[in-house]
């Protein structure tokens, strides 16, 4: 599983990098940056799913 971030949808709410700081960071504008672009391990899938489930703009997906 991998993280798919749609930067068109991201508005910089910052939920992902607060909830999953190992997987997401903020750029200089406050928008999300994906830190782990490859395959996620089991624990990372949990963290990424948490971030995805809390994004108000539905900008994050955890996809195969």
């Amino acid at each position: 599983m991998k993280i798919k971030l749609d930067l068109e949808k991201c508005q910089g709410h910052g939920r992902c990098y607060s909830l999953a700081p190992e997987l997401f960071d903020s750029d200089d504008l406050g928008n999300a940056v994906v830190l782990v672009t490859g395959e996620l391990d089991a624990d990372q899938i949990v963290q990424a799913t948490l971030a995805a489930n809390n994004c108000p703009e539905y900008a994050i997906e955890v996809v195969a």
Partner: protein
Amino acid sequence: MTMEKLPVADFATDFDHTDPQWVADPYPIMEDLRERCPIAHSNRYGGMWVPVLHEDVSAIANDTEHFTSRTVVVGSGRPGEDAPPAPIGVAPPISSDPPFHAIARRLMLPAFAPKKINALESFSRELCRRLIAEMADREVIDAAVDYAQHIPVGLIAKMLGLPQEDGDLFRSFVHIILEGVDLPQEQRIEAFQPVEAYFIRVLEEHQANPNDDLTSFLLEAEIMGNKLEDAHIFGSMILLVVAGIDTTWSAIGSSIWHLAKNPEDLARLVEDPSLIASAIEEFLRAYAPVTMARLVKEDFEFKGCPMKQDDWILLGFPAANRDPKFFDRADEVIIDREQNRHAAFGLGIHRCLGSNLARLEMQTALEEFIAAFPKFEIADDDGVTFSQGQVRGPRTLPIRILERS
């Protein structure tokens, strides 16, 4: 001061967000409207539509084709020619539409991104501790007046490079702008004079003595090689003061209000302060302070509603946040809620610029308050009052301290 208004007969057809019944407790009214409307209407304010479902609030917030942000606070009538036109508006970027919006917003975003805001943590924490120290020996305190209201004022003054002691002045400005919706237009303009005079003086002082602050940044900033127009700078500063103060004051106050009434939640946070971050998100969801407005750009049918040009849309993020079609157990406050896509900071391109600042203030304010006062309760139910208008939160909040550490 205020014009006499008739009480609302039916919120579905005669909606008024300044009606005492709505101010006292809007949530049952939202629930009722969701079931039978779900977009309420009013002939007040020159015509207004009020969506209460998350899907409708989200659709309108994301539809800048049909809805303009050129006025975001509902006034006594249609703004007509008085409101500066899109795309810039009176207070960029909140009042701006695409394409100018993105330019004005991009300019401001770095100052409010986490890297800059996190650097203010110790300032915010010290301010909270100082306020707590001042009320340390009192049995009953007012958590809105003695505590919550001072925190955002202190932070925004710090960011703009304005004197900390001007706090009372800022709060009076906020009142003039946000809570004056009932005043006729001429009276609002007159009331606005001292606000304008203050900021003109501030800009002159910063022009003469530039600083490493947001005011000097705005004075130096350029868009495509041109300095910002005075009206843009002035509007943005007013926006930062207005949007930054009432809102977070309300959010901190509502959080303390909830904890005072729910000792089991308070005990959990005292026991495990790592829960404060998720509790804050839940307080933001359940007690979202901010309702925005839009104007209909031109005649247009939305979900069967015949919207006319310049009709108001009261964009209720608090209502969206209580929609049971969108949230499980929407009316319950669950401080460790795992899925919380709340819209307290808005949705779409106008997401609150200061959301990171607001969260920092809430986090430090709650951590310090419950560390100092691990047990407290409402001292007097009748003494709790809420603001009227588009920002909702406690304005007086008498709290009895039951235990101090």
